[in-house]
C-alpha cells in the first residue's frame, strides 16, 4: 500500500498520523536527551536512534503482555515502543532514584520487565541468545510468548548472533530476529565488512525465512514484522527481518559524524520517517495543524517529563551495593 492509496480521513491516514505522533515522541525524547547530555545533566556515552524511529514505531503494539523485547544500547525508542513511562526513562538516563532502574542501568542498559522490555544490552549481539531463552521459557510456561530481539547490521558478524539464529531455527523457537540496518557500525560502513550486504539472505543458512523491509515506514514494519510474530506464535519458528533505516546523528552524542558518504545525508533526510510520514499525510490531505501538533505535543510531553525527572533526587549511594545476591 502506498501513500497515494489513502484518501483523507481514511484508516491509513489515521494510522499514519498515530505513527507520526509516536515517531515524534521518540524523536522529541531523544532530542531532549541530547540537550540534557550537552548541558551536562546526563553524562557518559549515549547512543541516539534519531532517524530510526520508524522501526520501533511500527513494532509498537505487536508484542503482547506475555512477550519479551530485547534491544541494544540504542534502545530508547524501543523502551518507548514498549510503553515504558518516559519520565522513568529520563530519570534513568539522568541517574535519578526515580529512574526505571534507579540509575543502575543508565542510557545503555535500561531494563523494564513490567513493560515486557527485557532490556538493552551493551555487548553487541549478546541479546540474541538471551531472547532465545525467553522464547524457550514460553514453550514451557504455556504463555505463547514471542521474543523479539533487535540488533544492528554490524551485530550480524558477531558469533553469538549466529549461534542464536541456529539455536532458534533448530528448535523452531518463537524468536523474531530484527536487524536494524542503518548501514553503519559505529564509524564503519557495513558494506565493507561483509561480502554480501543483503543481510537478510543469511536467514537461509539456518533454514529460516528472511526478508528486507523499509524500516522507515511504520505501516510496512507493522505488517511484515507482524507476520513474523504470527509465524512464531503459531509454531513456525524464527524469522529474520532486516529493516532498512538510517541514523541521522552520530554513533554517540559527541561523535563528530564526519564519515558520511557523498549524498548520504540528503538521501537519508528524504526517507527518514518524519519526512516520509509528513509527506504522506500531506498527500492524504491531513491538515498542517494536525501534523504540527504531532511534534508540539511530543515536545511538550518530553519537556514536562524531563523536568520532573530532573527534579527527583539523585540515586542514593547508600544503596549501591544492594541486590547483588538474593
Amino acid at each position, binding site marked *: 500500500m502506498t501513500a497515494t492509496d489513502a484518501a483523507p480521513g481514511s484508516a491509513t491516514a489515521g494510522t499514519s498520523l498515530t505513527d507520526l505522533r509516536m515517531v515524534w515522541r521518540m524523536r522529541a525524547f531523544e532530542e531532549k536527551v541530547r540537550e540534557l547530555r550537552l548541558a551536562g545533566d546526563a553524562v557518559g556515552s549515549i547512543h541516539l536512534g534519531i532517524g530510526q524511529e520508524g522501526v520501533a514505531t511500527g513494532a509498537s503494539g505487536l508484542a503482547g503482555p506475555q512477550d519479551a523485547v530485547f534491544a541494544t544500547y540504542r534502545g530508547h525508542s524501543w523502551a518507548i515502543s514498549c510503553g515504558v513511562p518516559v519520565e522513568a526513562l529520563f530519570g534513568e538516563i539522568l541517574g535519578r532514584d526515580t529512574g526505571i532502574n534507579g540509575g543502575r542501568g543508565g542510557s545503555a542498559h535500561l531494563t523494564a520487565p513490567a513493560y515486557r522490555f527485557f532490556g538493552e544490552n551493551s555487548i553487541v549481539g*549478546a541479546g540474541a541468545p538471551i531472547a532465545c531463552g525467553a522464547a524457550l521459557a514460553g514453550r514451557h510456561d504455556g504463555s505463547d510468548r514471542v521474543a523479539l530481539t533487535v540488533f544492528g547490521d554490524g551485530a550480524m558478524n558477531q558469533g553469538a548472533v549466529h549461534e542464536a539464529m541456529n539455536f532458534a531455527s533448530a528448535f523452531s523457537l518463537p524468536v523474531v530476529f530484527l536487524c536494524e540496518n542503518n548501514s553503519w557500525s559505529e564509524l564503519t560502513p557495513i558494506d565493507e565488512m561483509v561480502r554480501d550486504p543483503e543481510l537478510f539472505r543469511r536467514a537461509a543458512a539456518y533454514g529460516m525465512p528472511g526478508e528486507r523491509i523499509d524500516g522507515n515506514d511504520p505501516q510496512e514494519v507493522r505488517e511484515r514484522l507482524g507476520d513474523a510474530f504470527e509465524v512464531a506464535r503459531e509454531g513456525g519458528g524464527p524469522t529474520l527481518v532486516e529493516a532498512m533505516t538510517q541514523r541521522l546523528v552520530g554513533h554517540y552524542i559527541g561523535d563528530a559524524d564526519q564519515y558520511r558518504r557523498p549524498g548520504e545525508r540528503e538521501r537519508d533526510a528524504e526517507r527518514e520517517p518524519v519526512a516520509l510520514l509528513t509527506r504522506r499525510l500531506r498527500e492524504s490531505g491531513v491538515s498542517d495543524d494536525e501534523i504540527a501538533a504531532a511534534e508540539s505535543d511530543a515536545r511538550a510531553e518530553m519537556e514536562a517529563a524531563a523536568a520532573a525527572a530532573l527534579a527527583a533526587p539523585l540515586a542514593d549511594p547508600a544503596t549501591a551495593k544492594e541486590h*547483588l545476591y538474593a
Partner: protein
Amino acid sequence: MPDTAVSGPATTGAPSATQDVKELTYGGAVNAALRRCLEEIPETLLYGEDIAKPGGVFGVTRGLRRDFGDRVFDTPISESAILGSAVGAAMLGRRPIVEIMWVDFSLVAFDQVVNQLVNVRYVSRGELVAPVTIRTQQGSAPGACAQHSQSLEALFLHVPGLRVCMPWTAQDAYDLLVAAVHSDDPVLVIENRTLYPAGTGPVRLGGPVQQPGGLRVRREGTDATVVTWGAMTARVLEAAATLAGEGISVEVLETPWLNPFPTDEVAASARRTGALAVVHEANTTGGFGAEVVARVAGEGVALRVPPLRVGLPDTRVPAAPSLAAGLVPGPDAIAATIREWLG
C-alpha cells in the same frame, strides 16, 4: 572420607518427599541431584551438549531425558547460545541447569556469564532474577591436552554476583548441586571428571536443601592449617596422613563453597595452628589461593611461618603424563613442600 563439618551448612526449605540412602558414585550423585531437582521444581530445564539422549559424555545425565521429556534436551555446539538462553529463560521464570562440558569451553562464551548473567539482578534491582545453575567439570587428567586441563575457578571467583562451588565427595556432589539449583542466585558448580566414576559410597538423598556456604574439616590438626578444594582434597589428605606419620599434625579444611567463602572459620583455624597453606590445582599466580592468603593476612592473623601456596607452576599443561606429573602437585610433592615449609 570423614565429614566432621565444624561449620555445618545452613539449610532452608523442606527435605524432599523421599529421603533415602543409596550407594552412588560421584557421577551417580550428580544424576540423583538433577533428578530430584527436575522432580521437585517444575521450572527446571536441563540442557547442554550431548546431555539428553546420549546421557552425557560421562554418562552423568543418563535417563533424565527419558523421564522428563523435553525439559531435558541436547543442544548445538554453541556455548553462547547455551549460556545466553539460560539467562533469558531464567529472566522469564525458568530455572535452567546447563552444562558446559569442560570449563575450558566456557571461555568461548564468557561474556554471557560476566557481562550478562550476573548483571540481571543488580541492574534491575531484583525485579528480574537469574537463577541459572551452570554445571561444568575441570582439572587435569593423564594425557589431556593444554586446552582440556585447566582449573579456572579463579576466573569466576573474580566475578561479583556468581556463587561458585567445587564438590569433592559424592554427598557434596549431590547436596551442593541441589543447593545450587534451589538458590535464587546464579551458581557455578565445578565438578571433576576424574571423580565421576569414583567414590562409591552411601549418599543421603532427599535431605533438606542446604544454603550455599560452609566448610568441611576433613582432618583436625595443630601444626598447620591447609585449605583446599575439589579433587585436590584427596591429595592433601594423603599428604596429611604421611605427615602425621612423621609427627606433623595438619588440619585440612576443604572449602567446597568458594563463593561464599568461609573466611572467619579459615582465619580461626590459622590463628589456632599459626600456619596457613592453600593447595589448589590451578596455577599459582592469580589463583584463589592468593585470595585466601590475603584474607587471612588482612585479618591480622599472626603466623609463625610465611603462608604457603601450592598450585600448578605458572605454565601451560602438557599432555604427556611424565611431563604433567612434574607440574601438577601430587600427594608426595604436597607432603614434601609442607614438610620443608614447616621446617
